């Protein structure tokens, strides 16, 4: 039963029946018809009645057990009709693991003051109802806050003040919900303890938790949130404008989860200057919108949806846009016109140099293409290697494969976007085992044919066969693949990806020169310093809970990155009644459990018992 103890009533109007209580008393005060008997003396009876009856009307009621029973019966009936329930839906578990969803959707103001505070109030009730003391009755609570990452705010304790302090210090973030870690911790903690349960306080805006589908997790879902009135930006990107290479195209997608058409405007700002404002009508589908703007220097594009809804966090997003630079490609080849043409067409601005071999000297290149050439000096930058035997990359050894058949390709990878290998035949290829640093993109039954990945800090796309010994250059997929590869291998585009993180995710930055600290200026404007191990080769910053532009200074290098929500699941603020665990598992919201915790049946049973005892009492009195 509930440790929390405020009892509420679903039908308080039933208390009007309580007016019948005085009526019962009045009936008792009325004279009953009695049989008259003459007795020798009433002295003995007076003495006998002295203990059970008094002469004054209300005192007479005092020792009347039958009346008390009837009043009790009536009271129980009224209570049962009022349908009492306890609002704290906890059980008697000795260990209660509480997970508080601190994702962006919890900022919705459909609850007062918002969903997050409402959830905190619910947890506070649970804490209040925690039974503390010695022995098996002692209950402990572990408090976790789950946003993009999960954090144990308070380890298992029965100290209510510590739990309240931990709860008060919890803050909502702009990040998406990632509950897996929190649930894993909860599962770990509850596995050993048979008397345990997990309380999840959330609005249910959670991606499917397939991983927990088959697990027996005793989870109680406390739903917060009442409605879905939200429209938000779910994606944002900046690209070169395909129609006008001198301008930039800003792609945004908007989702409307309010269930009604929304007519509003959307602003585009560059470095906080308004560039354009577009009127738009949002239906219930995802609406794409494209801005075109000139970009005089590196800067920040910011889009803003001018619509007041429950969730403000997804009405604005920003992206750091660096000025496009020509891609400098060095082609080391004995001559491959297909490849040259494809490389030239791969990007809007390409500076292609060709060489027969690679030596140490030469200008720095964005990427190097090795076309069936084993260079004297291996390039340090990103590499597209075609039919190159580099045994360092493949420690499992390399062999040869005659006429491998392409049986599968991973078209979800950015490198294989818009490509197909259905009609590509290969005469001969290296045979390798898929290395740990990369993934196989195109497979034959015996060996991967194309592998892509990061080897150290070097991005590598390795093609195991000579393109000219295949039909691939004649297919449309070839130039598309080369364009994708140039885009993927171009350090500028990789950096551009680096400068976009989801709020709550860690920001990674390679350290090029030894530094001892990093200065960070978050969107709040309060700058702070983070110490860095001088030997570290990568700077990782996880404090991206609030969306906006983060300025990072590492030694002499300064840069900015944008943290955005941009999560369709979070923007859909519709409170879920159930949380799906895989295809079969579902956890119903505790609002349904609350109904199960109604107590009217117990009151009715007690009333029945009282009625029987009243009957027995009456017959004992008068038999």
């Amino acid at each position, binding site marked *: 039963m509930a440790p929390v103890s405020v009892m509420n009533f679903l039908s308080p109007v039933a208390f009007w029946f309580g007016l019948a209580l005085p009526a019962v008393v009045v009936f008792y005060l009325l004279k009953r018809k009695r049989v008259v*008997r003459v007795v020798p003396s009433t002295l003995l009876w007076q003495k006998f009645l002295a203990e059970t009856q008094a002469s004054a009307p209300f005192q007479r009621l005092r020792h009347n057990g039958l009346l008390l029973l009837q009043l009790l019966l009536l009271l129980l009936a009224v209570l049962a009709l009022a349908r009492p329930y306890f609002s704290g839906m906890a059980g008697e578990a000795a260990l209660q693991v509480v997970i508080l969803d601190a994702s962006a959707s919890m900022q919705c103001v459909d609850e007062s003051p918002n969903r997050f505070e409402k959830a905190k109030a619910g947890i506070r009730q649970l804490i209040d109802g925690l039974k503390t003391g010695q022995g098996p009755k002692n209950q402990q609570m572990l408090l976790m806050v789950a946003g993009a990452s999960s954090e144990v705010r308070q380890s298992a304790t029965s100290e209510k003040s510590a739990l309240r302090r931990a709860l008060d210090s919890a803050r909502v973030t702009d990040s998406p919900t990632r509950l897996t870690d929190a649930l894993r911790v909860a599962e770990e903690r509850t596995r050993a303890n048979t008397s345990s349960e997990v309380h999840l306080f959330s609005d249910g805006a959670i991606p499917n938790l397939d991983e927990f589908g088959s697990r027996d997790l005793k989870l109680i879902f406390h739903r917060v949130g009442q409605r879905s009135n939200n429209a938000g930006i779910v994606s944002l990107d900046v690209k070169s404008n395909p129609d006008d290479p001198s301008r930039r195209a800003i792609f945004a997608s908007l989702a409307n989860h309010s269930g009604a058409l929304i007519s509003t405007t959307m602003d585009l700002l560059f470095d906080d200057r308004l560039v354009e404002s577009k009127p738009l009508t949002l239906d219930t589908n995802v609406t794409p919108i494209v801005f075109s703007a000139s970009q005089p220097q590196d800067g920040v594009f910011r889009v803003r949806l001018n619509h007041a809804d429950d969730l403000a966090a997804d009405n604005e997003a920003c992206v750091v846009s660096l000025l496009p630079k020509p891609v400098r490609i060095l082609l080391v080849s004995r001559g491959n016109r297909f490849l040259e043409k494809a490389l030239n067409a791969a990007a809007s601005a390409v500076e292609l140099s060709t060489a027969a071999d690679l030596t140490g000297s030469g200008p720095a290149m964005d990427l190097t293409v090795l076309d069936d050439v084993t260079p004297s000096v291996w390039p340090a930058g990103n590499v597209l290697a075609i039919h190159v035997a580099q045994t360092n990359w493949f420690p499992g050894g390399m062999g040869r494969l005659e006429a491998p058949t392409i049986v599968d390709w991973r078209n979800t990878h950015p490198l294989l976007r818009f490509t197909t290998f259905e009609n590509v035949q290969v005469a001969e290829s290296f045979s390798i085992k898929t290395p740990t640093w990369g993934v196989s993109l195109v497979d034959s039954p015996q060996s991967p044919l194309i592998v892509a990945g990061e080897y150290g800090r070097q991005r590598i796309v390795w093609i195991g066969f000579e393109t000219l010994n295949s039909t691939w250059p004649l297919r449309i997929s070839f130039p598309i693949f080369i364009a994708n590869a140039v885009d993927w291998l171009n350090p500028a585009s990789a950096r551009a990806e680096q400068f976009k993180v989801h709020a709550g995710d860690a920001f990674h930055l390679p350290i090029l020169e030894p530094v001892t600290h990093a200065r960070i200026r978050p969107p709040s404007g309060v700058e702070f310093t983070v110490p860095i191990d001088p030997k570290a080769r990568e700077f990782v910053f996880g404090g991206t809970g609030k969306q906006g532009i983060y300025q990072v200074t590492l030694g002499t290098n300064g840069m900015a990155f944008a943290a955005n929500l941009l999560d369709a699941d979070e923007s859909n603020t519709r409170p879920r009644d159930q949380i799906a665990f895989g295809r079969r598992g579902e956890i119903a919201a505790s609002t349904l459990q609350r109904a199960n915790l109604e107590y009217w049946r117990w009151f009715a049973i007690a009333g029945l018992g009282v009625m029987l005892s009243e009957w027995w009492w009456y017959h004992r009195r008068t038999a």
Partner: protein
Amino acid sequence: MDGSLAGELDAGRLAGAVGATGLAERRIPWMSALITPELLRRLEQIQLLAARRSKSSTKGERRSRARGLSVEFADHRNYVSGDDLRYLDWNLFGRLDRLFLKLYEEERELPVRIFLDASESMNFGEPTKFKFARQIAAAVGYVALCGFDRVAVNVFPAAPARITTGAVTADRIPQAAVEGSLRSIRGKKSAMTFFQNLSSLTPGGVADFNGSLKRGALEARQAGVAIVLSDFLDPAGYEPGLASLIGRGFQVNAVQILAPEELNPTTFGDLRLVDSETGGLEEVTFGKYRLPAYQRMVASFVQRLRDYASGRGIRFFSVSSSTDLGELLLKQLRAQEVWG
């Protein structure tokens, strides 16, 4: 007793009637209803036991502190002129040559006072409490008369109070006259009249228990044995009355008589109870399950009375009106040394 039968009885015949059981049963049928001849015969062998010597001034058969004429030698004293020469101790004169007079114990009577509750509340039970009390009074009185003791019966409430409540004597003898004749009776030959008068009493009215006992204590010239026959259900209590008897020097024997329905009520349900004497009302819902509680309360009431009595040297008996009279008279009273 009807009037013609009363007319036939004279003092001489009464003694014969008492002595001849068969005649009594045949000729005086009302007497066997009061007390059976068999019981009478056995009572004749009993004598009231007095703890103290009699203080009465009338000669009787009880030892007293007074010196007088009897066969029990008590003491000698010097002869003074004028003494009856018949009581000189000639043997002592022969040995001592001095004249001494022999003294004997004077035997006096024992006053026995019976307080008989004849209030309306005694008119309940089967047999009624009053009939039972009257039988005890008859037995005690008969034993006293056989022992040549003086018997006085105090009936309360007095006749006027009983008559105004509607009681009518069956044989038309005025109750006041009967009560007057019961005030002082002596001698076995008066037994029949005593029985006759007792039989003619009828209960009724409201008793003043304490007042009656006080009056009885005051009007007694000498203290003796007091027998109190009542239900002791007086709203004013019983302590002052009993205390006045003790104070007067009576040796008190108290017999509480309760009706069977007072001990074990048989009427259940929602009741309005009317007090037979005062007319007071009590409303009660009574069921069998409350009977033990009621019985406990009655036992507690009786126990309080018993404790009060034993604390003051009163012999106390509590009986139901349905108790066997012989059992009470020949066993209980004898065991308690009321008589022997």
